[in-house]
């Protein structure tokens, strides 16, 4: 881990990335604003989404047990995974039981979080990503995801064409038409959909009341994976549970408008256990904790678990839209990643992420479930300072000293007089980070309060 400032320094230099990302985020920002403006009850929907999530989290044990009972009653098998290793082992065991050395995957952040593909590879099982952007990232061994929804957002058409012509469309000339380039992926994937017996998915929502799992997607690959293979394994973070079927009414409006700026996403797949005459014959639901219970303990930070992975906060973020997702060194980039990653992995694993924000508030404004990301960032900064920084760290000593100065008018006014030393040759001294691009302000001859006193005396 390089930490955000160093990782961002590298990505910021990539002019192609800056161009691709700038263009993509600018376009989606405008589209999202137009789409949400169509609904006059948007703010009420946000409030409802926030309230439903808060209720689900407050009653999580009951919701999960109800979900387990409902899935089991519908013929599914529920597994509980404490951490990544347990979840990966469960998926590998199911795949092996069916003698498959390949699984096809629906785009899933939970499985990325636990490193499922790598864990399966160690067991001799190849995981094939079927989401177009995930496939693009998977085909390039040097590439990594950079966006929650569009993992290959950093790549443009020319780069994708070249990648395909090197890999799945060797020796072909795909041309410049997007449809022709996508067709190469379609041909490659269609063969897999029809032959691989085991599929792995994530879950957007899991309904406790009915045991129904919901996956929302745009390309139809998810529908293929959840219907064609005979075995389906879903890895679901425990925070994805919703109490009731009717809760979907709220979230199926909030999610597509916030993520792709669509009124409705093209494919919404819902399934409840198994059926004799349709879809997979075997369904496994893996309920993944992997740090989430710990996050729930933090009264301020826990709202990060309300996230529905729409990526609106990434798209509106002035930091993310320049650095890209790879600077966050996590499956979860952008503002939500900056509050989720340190909580899931531990503050010591990502101590710079809570500072990867100018606290501009654009994320909070956009969040469909009203996660107050700036407040959680500030809260996590305080936790890092309290739990991770030594008492003798220079910054802490400086902050303590400045705090002491501000605590007394006398010390404050003395410090103001000292600041005037900055008027002389000292004003030419470089300040790391600041003077690389900006002049320092000139320290004035007279402070405001000196003027005020002088004026009173007149």
């Amino acid at each position, binding site marked *: 881990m390089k930490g*955000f*400032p160093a990782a*961002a*320094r590298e990505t*910021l230099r990539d002019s192609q990335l*800056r161009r691709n990302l700038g263009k993509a985020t600018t376009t989606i920002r405008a589209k999202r604003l137009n789409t949400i403006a169509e609904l006059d009850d948007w703010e009420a929907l946000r409030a409802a989404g926030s309230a439903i999530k808060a209720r689900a989290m407050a009653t999580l044990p009951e919701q999960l047990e109800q979900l387990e009972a409902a899935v089991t009653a519908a013929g599914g098998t529920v597994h509980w995974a404490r951490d990544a290793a347990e979840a990966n082992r469960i998926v590998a065991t199911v795949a092996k039981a069916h003698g498959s050395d390949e699984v096809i995957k629906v785009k899933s952040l939970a499985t990325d979080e636990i490193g499922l593909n790598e864990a399966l590879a160690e067991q001799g099982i190849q995981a094939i990503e079927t989401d177009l952007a995930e496939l693009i990232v998977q085909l390039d061994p040097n590439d990594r995801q950079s966006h929650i929804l569009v993992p290959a957002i950093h790549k443009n058409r020319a780069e994708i064409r070249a990648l395909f012509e090197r890999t799945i469309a060797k020796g072909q000339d795909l041309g410049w038409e997007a449809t022709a380039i996508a067709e190469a992926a379609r041909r490659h994937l269609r063969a897999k959909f029809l032959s691989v017996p085991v599929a792995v998915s994530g879950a957007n929502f899991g309904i406790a009341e009915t045991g129904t799992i919901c996956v929302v997607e745009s390309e139809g690959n998810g529908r293929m994976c959840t219907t064609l293979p005979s075995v389906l394994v879903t890895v679901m973070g425990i925070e994805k549970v919703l109490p009731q079927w009717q809760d979907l009414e709220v979230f199926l409006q909030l999610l597509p408008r916030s993520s792709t700026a669509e009124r409705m996403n093209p494919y919404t797949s819902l399934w409840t256990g198994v059926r004799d005459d349709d879809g997979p014959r075997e369904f496994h639901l893996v309920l993944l904790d992997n740090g989430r219970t710990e996050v729930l303990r933090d009264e301020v930070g826990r709202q990060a678990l309300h996230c529905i992975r729409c990526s609106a906060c990434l798209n509106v973020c*002035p*930091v993310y839209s*320049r*650095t890209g997702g790879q600077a966050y060194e996590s499956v979860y980039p952008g503002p939500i990643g900056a509050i989720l990653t340190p909580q899931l992995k531990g503050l010591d694993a990502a101590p710079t992420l*809570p*500072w*990867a*924000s*100018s*606290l*501009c*508030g*654009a994320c*909070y*404004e956009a969040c469909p479930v009203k996660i107050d990301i700036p407040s959680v960032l*500030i809260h996590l*900064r*305080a*936790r*890092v*300072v*309290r739990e991770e920084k030594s008492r003798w760290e220079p910054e802490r000593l400086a*902050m*303590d000293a*400045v*705090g002491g*100065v*501000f*605590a*007394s*008018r006398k010390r*404050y006014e003395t410090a*103001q007089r000292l*600041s005037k030393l900055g008027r002389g040759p000292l004003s030419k001294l470089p*300040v*790391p*980070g*600041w003077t*690389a*691009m*900006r*002049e*320092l*302000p000139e*320290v*004035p001859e*007279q*402070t*405001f*309060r*000196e*003027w*005020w*006193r002088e004026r009173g005396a007149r």
Partner: protein
Amino acid sequence: MRAALFVTCFNDTLFPGTGRAVVELLERLGVEVDFPEEQTCCGQMHVNSGYADQGSALARRFERVFADAEHVVSPSASCVAMVREHCPAVAERVHELTEFLVDVLEVEDVGASFPHRVAYHPTCHSLRLLQVGDRPLQLLRAVQGIDLVEIERSQECCGFGGTFAVKNADTSMAMLSDKLRHVLDTGAEVCTSADNSCLMHIGGALRRQRTGVRTVHLAEILAARE
């Protein structure tokens, strides 16, 4: 009407002209201005940097200093946002300058004249924390002689963000580069806003690049009689 000026430690020390402008402007509008000299810092830097205890001590101090004020007025949206959230004892009596002018004094035309081409930068904290809306623009539009122009993607952060500007200097500079380009594209000679902190950042780069564009706090334009 009486109002206590919360000038902010930052303006007090580095941008006294803004404090002087607020005093002149408010007095011109018939307000009697106090300046409680015990005031120092509201604690925002500590709070936002993760030093919650020190920040909270300064917030309590702020509440004591301004305990008796009927109205508190400040030329910093960012510091007012801090006080609104962290100083409940005075929160409702604290107004950012444009809020005070438009909501309390109920004026739009403050009798200013400023014959220059001006680009208004709505700062994040004025926009999204305080939600001052178009109050600054209502006031600016009424200034005589002003040629007010809009900055493209004006609502996007300039990249200051307090210690963010030095802790994440590269990212901050990338954000600033785009903001500068949009400011320069307007052809304005002056860039203004409700916060000198953002203006120190934008203005520092405008000067470094010898663009000839200067930054001026909103209060100084509203006080101007050129």
